[in-house]
């Protein structure tokens, strides 16, 4: 695709330049990234020089702009389209290139080995889906490899067992859902990964897929066509278990907790209630709402390839703001339900609050405390 094709491809003509996209954009709080203006330039400036637009890598694809657009356009997608032009032109930050390469070769962006993907599950007695289970637990990349996020995967497993859910994982067959690849502008790579996953899944009689990451959930839910099974994010599934009374949360967890809506769960898929439901059903736990929550929640900057690209203003981090807000709220725990949020926020917590300060946890970690 060329710059000149953007207007047609993304119906840029329909934009009325109202500025809601940039106005709500979390990045516009800290960098010169201005999607409204980028759209306009693509419209009026036939020889727009996209290559020089480094800011394009600032976008975390949180989807706020798309959510707010009054004319039904999808600025997030426009950014992706622009990135794909950069990718074709080879203008990519090295870190991004490595991540993409790793995805192509190893099926994960973390430059980890394929055959180590399921190591985290050793000794947990987790069955492979091939052994025949209706519920497939799609672990995802960082839960599989990142030691911090592995805790979440483990917590999930523990919970599933407690509620005697018959489930299995793909093990080393699992490859990245491709969500990030697509958002980094590598549409081709995304399609490849999608095919891989679909092939792998093909033989298994899965009825329900549960994911750790909202990003995986979003990909399977919205970007994989023709799945013959339901896809749920774990918060939906676990909330379900609690509803059906299959998950006795007996232990008191005496903590003041606040919750960060992950963009891919909340803004993009409107899953607001379930995570809160889970937290509220943990005995002794006091849930306090951040002012900016639900549709207005503040992005952690983890998405859209930002795990592998610093962006143009690395000093300032929205995660810091977020942690600060949580602390002002008097929360002891800042809970979330997304691996990226978990990592970025915890990182921020360390710098802002230091060790022993506010704790950043995944909802599942609180759940197991209550088991």
């Amino acid at each position, binding site marked *: 695709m060329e710059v000149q094709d953007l207007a047609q491809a993304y119906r840029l*003509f*329909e934009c*009325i*330049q109202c500025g809601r996209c940039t106005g709500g954009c979390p990045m516009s709080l800290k960098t010169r990234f201005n999607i409204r203006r980028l759209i*306009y330039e693509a419209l*009026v400036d036939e020889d727009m020089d996209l290559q020089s637009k480094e800011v394009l890598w600032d976008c975390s694809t949180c989807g706020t702009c798309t959510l707010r657009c009054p*004319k039904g356009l999808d600025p997030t997608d426009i950014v992706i389209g622009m990135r794909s032009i950069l990718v074709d032109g080879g203008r990519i930050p090295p870190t991004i290139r490595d991540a993409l390469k790793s995805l192509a070769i190893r099926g994960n962006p973390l430059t980890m080995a394929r055959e180590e993907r399921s190591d985290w599950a050793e000794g947990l007695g987790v069955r492979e889906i091939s052994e025949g289970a209706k519920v497939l637990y799609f672990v995802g990349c960082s839960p599989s490899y990142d030691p911090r996020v592995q805790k979440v995967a483990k917590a999930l497993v523990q919970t599933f067992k407690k509620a005697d859910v018959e489930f299995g994982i793909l093990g080393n067959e699992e490859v990245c859902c491709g969500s990030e690849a697509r958002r980094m502008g590598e549409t081709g790579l995304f399609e490849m990964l999608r095919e891989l996953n679909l092939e792998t899944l093909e033989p298994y009689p899965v009825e329900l897929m549960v994911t750790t990451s909202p990003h995986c959930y979003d990909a399977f839910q919205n970007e994989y066509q023709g799945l013959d099974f339901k896809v749920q994010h774990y918060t939906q599934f676990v909330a379900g278990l609690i509803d059906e009374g299959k998950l006795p949360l007996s232990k008191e967890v005496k903590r003041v907790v606040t919750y960060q809506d992950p963009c891919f769960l909340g803004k993009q898929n409107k899953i607001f209630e379930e995570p809160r439901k889970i937290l509220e059903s943990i005995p002794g736990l006091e849930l306090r709402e951040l002012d900016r929550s639900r549709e207005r929640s503040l992005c952690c900057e983890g998405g859209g390839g930002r795990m592998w690209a610093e962006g143009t203003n690395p000093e300032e981090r929205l995660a810091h703001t977020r942690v600060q807000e949580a602390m002002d709220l008097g929360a002891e725990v800042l809970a979330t339900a997304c691996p990226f949020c978990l990592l970025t926020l915890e990182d921020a917590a360390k710098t802002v609050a230091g060790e022993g300060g506010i704790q950043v946890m995944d909802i599942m970690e609180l759940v197991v405390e209550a088991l």
Partner: protein
Amino acid sequence: MGPRIGVYVCHCGVNIAATVDVEEVTRFAQGLPSVAMARDYTYMCSDPGQALIKEDIKEFGLTKVVVASCSPMMHEPTFRGTIQEAGLNPYCLEMANIREQCSWVHEEEEEATRKAIQLVAAAVDKAFLLEPLEERRVAVTSAALVIGGGIAGMQAALDIANAGFQVYLVEKEPRLGGHLAQLDKTFPTLEPVAPLLAEEIREVEGHPNIDLLTSAEVIGLEGYIGNFKVNVTDQATIRDLKVGTIVVATGYDIFDARLKPEYGYGIYEKVITGLQFERLVSLSGSRKFWVNEKEPQDVLFIQCVGSRDKSVGHEYCSRICCMYTAKQALLVKEMLPQARVTVLYMDVRAYGKGFEEFYDQVRGEGVLYRRGNPSEIYKNGKRLIVRVEDTLLGEPVQLEADLVVLATGITPRRDSPKIANLLKLPRSPDGFFMEAHPKLRPVDTVTEGIYLAGCCQGPKDIPDTVAQAKAAAASAMIPLCQGQVKVEAVTSIIDEELCSGCGICAEMCVYDALSLHERKGVMTINEVLCKGCGACAAACPSKAIKLSHFTPAQILAQVDALV
């Protein structure tokens, strides 16, 4: 025996009673000389309240009534009706406004009560001097005149005619249709105008109740609502028409683009106006169109030419240009899909039903909207260069074009001062005819019996024009239906002993009710035209004019009671 006055103080629920001690006020009133009866009641305007007054009039033989309640604007007609039903002359009523002018604007009870007392005292002193007045009625000539044969005039004429009344439709030009006849298609449906209009014209021409006078002009008007006498030049002859009501639908002129020399209109043939574009398209059979034998590659539309522009004395928005430009831009896209079509705007005013949707559609078709009002056009070789700041980029740009279409706005007709003078219509600062009230009386004028339709009152698109034309028709047919009209009883009276005939009053009178009696050298008043506004009385240096119901004696008595 002197007048016997009844005073009625209203609580208006808590509206008055909460801040004014109504009992106190009533007690005071009871003590006033020639007050035969004073009462207070929760809602004087309610049926029981009115009943109270009627009974008292009978029982105590009251000759004058004072009601202390809300603004006369609200309930004077109510209470006039009340006392009339009890056999008093309706003008023997005086109201003291102790709500809007007292309880609603004061907090402190004692103060408010004192003021209320003064207001009542003043009203009583005036009531003492009130004199009965006669309301007269005059018969109505059962026909209407419509001036202007554009879409507004035709619609108004049709409605009145369809209601069964004789209509004279006077059109300056030899043919009907006005500006509409020059248009090609209408948004948002892109329906061709010609057939629509033809149908309308056929209906008008064939209508038994419509007497159509084309190439005709109104040259004289006298009389008043119900009995207007109109002189019309019908080709050679002059006809005298007698009508009861008049609808003015004289339309508008298009802004003369030459007044914005920076756009080079008249110099560059490729700079045309919106109206020329309409002709261009409908002549070129509207499948393709050329600018001197070539298909234009870059077509540029410029909005607000002669609108929102104090520099040419048109502060107002012309209301239609945004949408006709959008429509024209779309037409170009349809005829020349390859052409680049750009619209330069300040604000896109797609306010009407289906407008925003149409605006969306037009952009969807690939018409480029850039924000910025061009400041000049010049030539570079064969191509036109338009200089403008793109205010969204914050950068000055120079755009090449093969065709520039100026969205010229709507202006009052050049001859509207003449018409205004002829019909005694005031004009608003923008130069269009002025309606009686900008909110609630959009088609009436200060002159009863004369109503406004279409763009002579201000810019309008077709549906709004049609609606307003029908509205004017409604106003115009009501007196015809009633067969007679009431004449204001409160009028000015001239004391010929005092009047020097200087004519200052005549200048002041918007109703044209005063004229100089040549022989006597004093002013005389037409009581049917007089609306009793009192402007003349105030203006007369000799105080030779009295306003009945507001005579100096009555007012001074009131003032005296207050100060």
